[in-house]
């Protein structure tokens, strides 16, 4: 498979066209994410129950990679504890940046389809914007998180 088809796998294009959990959650936590380089914007909504992510959703505009990544993220983290979700984010980050994986007992599952991003360094921020934004929502940071300060 070429690097390009590896980046834009069918599953990514599907999630881009019909994203999961593309909605607003009223009364939960939320944060806005912004990639100043390309103008992509995403709002992530999180509803916690104790330290479990009971519900998570997003809305916004962006490229196929950022939209598919947000959609896949919401599907992957729903029902996880905050600790597990954070560990999954770290594993996901290693996957999209091409860093060697570490054995931590966590499975990437469907998030694996985004590993093709590692061949396109300029697109890593597209893939991680929703994750940084979710973390900001959980931390209930005020204002907007950008891909520039959420390293």
């Amino acid at each position: 498979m070429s690097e390009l088809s590896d980046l834009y796998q069918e599953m990514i294009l599907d999630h881009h066209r019909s994203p999961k959990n593309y909605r607003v959650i009223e009364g939960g936590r939320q944060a806005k994410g912004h990639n100043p380089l390309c103008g992509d914007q995403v709002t992530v909504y999180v509803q916690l129950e104790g330290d479990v992510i009971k519900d998570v959703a997003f809305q916004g505009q962006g490229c196929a990679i950022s939209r598919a990544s947000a959609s896949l993220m919401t599907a992957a983290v729903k029902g996880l504890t905050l600790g597990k979700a954070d560990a999954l984010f770290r594993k996901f980050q290693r996957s999209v940046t091409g860093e060697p994986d570490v054995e931590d007992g966590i499975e990437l599952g469907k998030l694996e389809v985004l590993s093709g991003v590692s061949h396109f360094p300029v697109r890593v921020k597209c893939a991680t914007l929703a994750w940084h934004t979710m973390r900001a929502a959980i931390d209930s940071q005020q204002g907007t998180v950008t891909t520039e300060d959420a390293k």
Partner: protein
Amino acid sequence: MTVAATAAQAQAPVDWGRVRADFPLIGKLIKGKQIVYLDSAATSQKPHVVIDTMKRYYEEYNANVHRGAYNIAAKATQEYEAAREKVRRFVNASSTKEIVFTKGTTEGLNLVAYAWGRKFVKPDDEVVISELEHHSNLVPWQVLCTATGAKLKYIPIREDGTLDMSRLDEIITRRTRIVSVTGQSNVLGTVTPIRDIARRAREVGALMVVDGAQSVPHQPVDVQAIGCDFLAFSGHKVCGPTASGVLFGRRERLEEMDPFLYGGEMIREVRYDGSTWNELPWKFEAGTPGIAQAIGLGVAIDYVSAIGMDRIREHEASLTRKALAMAAELKDLTLYGPRDVSVRGGVITFNFAEIHPHDLATILDEQDRVCVRAGHHCAMPLTQKLGVAATARASFYIYNTEEEVDLLFDALRRAKEFFYRGAR
């Protein structure tokens, strides 16, 4: 050169194939595919002669300027100052005292905003720019206005991306201290009626600044004919090296300003209890300047001048005319900016087939090695005004060909096939 020789040269057709061959990166294979470089509005490619000249400086007479008493230092100074004279002739300034080397347009505009703006702009004054501006001709004025209490006003754009000149007289008034407008939009390609704007600025006694980043590389520019006080441009967009740039400033204006940066080179005399400043233009060139950059820029200017700025403009207009016609034919393509090439430079900005520009740029590059820019092009307010988050932009220069325009549109069709494969 004699008048007859100039006339003969003006009529001789340009061998654009030879021009193309002068650029090492043009037509080069990158990961097995021939590059189609359509991002000259971001930076131009460099001809061999510029690269070789800079290499020669470093290998044969690398020394600091204006101080060494030895041979190679004298040679470095001579070449550096010769480059200044080339720039003077290129923009038709009346003296080399009016040519300040900078590291680019951004530095030039900031220099004016600080050194002239902070000194002369008062609360309740007005600064006028346009809705087309790149961040580098917007943010320095925004900050100046915040600091001084002046008001920032915008010349609006019309639906077609041209400036609404009918409102000029009501926007530029006796309260206006500075007018700063781009010669050509980096997003829409709009060529602005800069002389008319300068005339109005003069009428009300305002300072006229031109952001020449996108106009100087692509059309003849004459600061005296424009009647501007300042014009800033970047060397790297006109076949010169990165971090080379020029601020033209009218002598009286530069004289009335204090220095922008203080240090070596810009002083006449330093005592423990005070200092005096060097004369123009060195008063504004503190520290060791980009020597290789200035010399390289001088050669780049020789290079484009030998082709002829009029003919460069014509060449780009013919590519743009073709691209606009093809864009109008292509289903699912939304084009931004003027359709009339007499007011549009070689910049085609668009959205296509509901493919996000970032995805489009990646696919165009990976499938066909077509290099376009995606995003807001450092003009976020303008992009917002267009009602989109981002656009894709293809821009042309002297080494681009009609075949490459065809390749762009073939590549767009192939991108759409790829992106919607399997989708029905």
